């Protein structure tokens, strides 16, 4: 599903984001990526959605070699990967419903399909009752769930979350992780970048630890190894 072969990313002039990194993530896996600040986690996430291009190596997603993906093909890739970034916010002037519908509108989906999909994904994240609220009228966790709902509208095979719980308390963090687990149980691959020891340890899933742009540990049922 996701295959990286000897990938390096150098930010000009000579900052190494990733060094000679190889990885293989199978369909349906729930993978946590951990590592100290600057280890290259966000760089990895950006490479997966073609926001950045690798300096060396190849990246394949679902059999599609995106190493040198053309600019006009990027939207197609983005519709196959649900993205949840920490600074990837909601539009404050739109309601929950409109924020989610937006992702379908800009992909040229029909009104009928929008009315089909939006209630469905809002239900998955448990916000169908709050569809007509504005983001300011929601808790941080609820807002992040709207972002997750929005990332689900194209039925992505992969969900990529970069520190989705970064600003949340324990309760809200648990809610988000529960939603991610639920989505994983439907068959989507989930890649979760996190700093949260409790979350990683409670998941009992595969954990990949990065340091200085390299994989230093990859355990099938891993624990959070780093000192915190």
């Amino acid at each position, binding site marked *: 599903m996701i295959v990286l072969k000897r990938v390096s990313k150098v930010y000009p002039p000579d900052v190494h984001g990733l060094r000679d990194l190889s990885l293989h993530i199978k369909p349906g896996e729930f993978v946590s990526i951990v590592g100290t600040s600057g280890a290259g986690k966000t760089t990895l996430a950006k490479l997966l959605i073609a*926001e950045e291009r690798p300096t060396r190596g190849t990246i394949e997603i679902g059999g599609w070699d995106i190493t040198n993906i053309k*600019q006009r093909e*990027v*939207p197609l890739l983005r519709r196959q990967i649900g993205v949840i970034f920490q600074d990837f916010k909601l539009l404050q002037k739109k309601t929950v419903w409109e924020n989610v519908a*937006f992702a379908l509108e800009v*992909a*040229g989906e029909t009104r009928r399909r929008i009315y089909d999909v939006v209630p469905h994904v809002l239900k998955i994240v448990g916000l169908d009752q709050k569809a007509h609220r504005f983001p300011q009228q929601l808790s941080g966790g609820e807002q992040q769930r709207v972002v997750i709902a*929005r990332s689900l509208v194209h039925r992505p095979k992969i969900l990529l979350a970069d520190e989705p719980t970064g600003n949340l308390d324990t309760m809200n963090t648990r809610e988000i992780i529960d939603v991610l687990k639920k989505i994983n149980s439907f068959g989507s691959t989930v890649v979760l970048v996190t700093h949260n020891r409790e979350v990683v340890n409670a998941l009992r899933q595969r954990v990949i630890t990065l340091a200085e742009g390299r994989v230093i540990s990859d355990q099938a049922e891993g624990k959070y190894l780093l000192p915190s």
Partner: protein
Amino acid sequence: MMIITSTGRIIAFAWKNFTRNAWIGLATIVVLVLSTLSVNILLGVNAVSDSALHRLEDKIDVSVYFLPETPPVILDSARAYMASLPQTKEIDLLSSDQALNDFKERHKNDPKILTALGELDKNPLGASIIIKAKTTADYPFLVEALQNPQFANYVESKTYDDNAAAIQRVQQISQSARYFGIMLIAIFTIFSILIVYNSIRIAIYTQREELGIMRLVGAGTAFVRLPLILSGVLQAILALLITALIVMTAIAFLDPKLRSLFDGGDSGLQGYFLINAWPLIGIQSAAIILLVALSSWAAAGKYLKK
């Protein structure tokens, strides 16, 4: 189906952009109006100064005074010869009788002059011809042509020598006024382009969050770019309408005032804009819309890269 949905939605997005960012849009519109207006003001000033110069040029002529005893055949041949030259625009022959009548008419309230005139037994005034050239640059040639031996001996005097300096000055002024006007218009156009481009960049910058989200959720390029370009074009059209209204009002107001400065003659202001209405509207609309569309396209591109 997909195309229709998308087209409709792009237009709807453009309209939303246009209305929701009304304040920033207003700034863009004001900049557009000021830029177009400044170019039009320069065009108008150019037109008026042009017609003022034309009027000055029009007042220039060469009068040739013949000796009173010049035979009519010589006068006629002189007139025919000068009229045949391609540089001649207009030629008038004033016979000595007409000259006398004119003179009497002019001094009819001056009995002293009239009695003095009555004491002469012969008409002291000779005939004259008044020549207007097609352009001021043609006068030296016409003056040269007056040296024709067929009639040169009968010429008493010419006014050209008195006018030569004035003619040259008018020529110089009109040349440099035209160059200056064109240069000013060019400079203003360049400034306008820079200002418009930057104001559009700022307007789009305020929407960067929404554009970033569009990109990450997989919006096609058209969905990011076209609404911005379309709402820019809407602003341009609005700005053009406002400019047209201001220009028309200004002409209606200024033209009569200028007429009095021109002794009731045409100031050239209204005429210039009327004669050139379609090219002016066409070129300015095309230029502004193209400028706005290209600026929006370029500014939006920043949010599409990577």
